[in-house]
């Protein structure tokens, strides 16, 4: 079946502009995650959605970052007034969230470059 789909695959933006990144999870997966992968760094947790529960936003690095998930499916990550340090690969993952053994299925990411 179809995997996690992210768009765009690449995004180049000017400093100060807003960007929206989109994630289509695997159908039926109730849990959705956003991670950020910077060069030479590990994956950094950003936000977690599970069903209708309040999302865990504890990983968002600043108030310029926000995310929503509409209808329990598609999610968008918005970065306002982008800065050069926001340049990274943004990865979305989904899972069935049946405990800590649920594997995360990752998309191929959006590579964001802020110039």
């Amino acid at each position, binding site marked *: 079946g179809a995997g996690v789909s992210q768009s765009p695959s690449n995004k180049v933006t000017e400093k100060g502009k807003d960007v929206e990144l989109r994630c289509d999870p695997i159908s039926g997966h109730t849990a959705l995650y956003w991670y950020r992968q910077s060069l030479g760094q590990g994956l950094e*947790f950003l936000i977690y959605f599970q069903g209708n529960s309040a999302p865990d936003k504890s990983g968002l690095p600043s108030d310029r970052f926000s995310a929503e998930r509409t209808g329990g499916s598609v999610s968008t990550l918005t970065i306002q007034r982008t800065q050069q340090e926001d340049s990274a690969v943004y990865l979305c993952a989904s899972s069935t969230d049946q405990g800590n053994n649920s594997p995360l299925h990752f998309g191929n990411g959006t590579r964001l470059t802020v110039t």
Partner: protein
Amino acid sequence: TQLLEQSPQFLSIQEGENLTVYCNSSSVFSSLQWYRQEPGEGPVLLVTVVTGGEVKKLKRLTFQFGDARKDSSLHITAAQPGDTGLYLCAGASAGSNYKLTFGKGTLLTVNP
């Protein structure tokens, strides 16, 4: 803050050689996952280990979870060029099992 230290950071070997990658922490994890990531793609899960001392084998790959559930290793026997990639370990804590802590990864290159 929980940290996972992976070593080595980079590894370049010849086809047919054996190698071991390490993932260490001072924190206890309820489970630990290993992922492999290729350029331009997202990480793909290889294995999950849950029990201290557990050993899992996946063809030429052997994964071990430390007795104290603070460390793990990945051993590859007779490496092949297709094994090339970034290997990531990720730990889940009992308090928030959905929030994985990732190591920075080991970039493995297997030369033919």
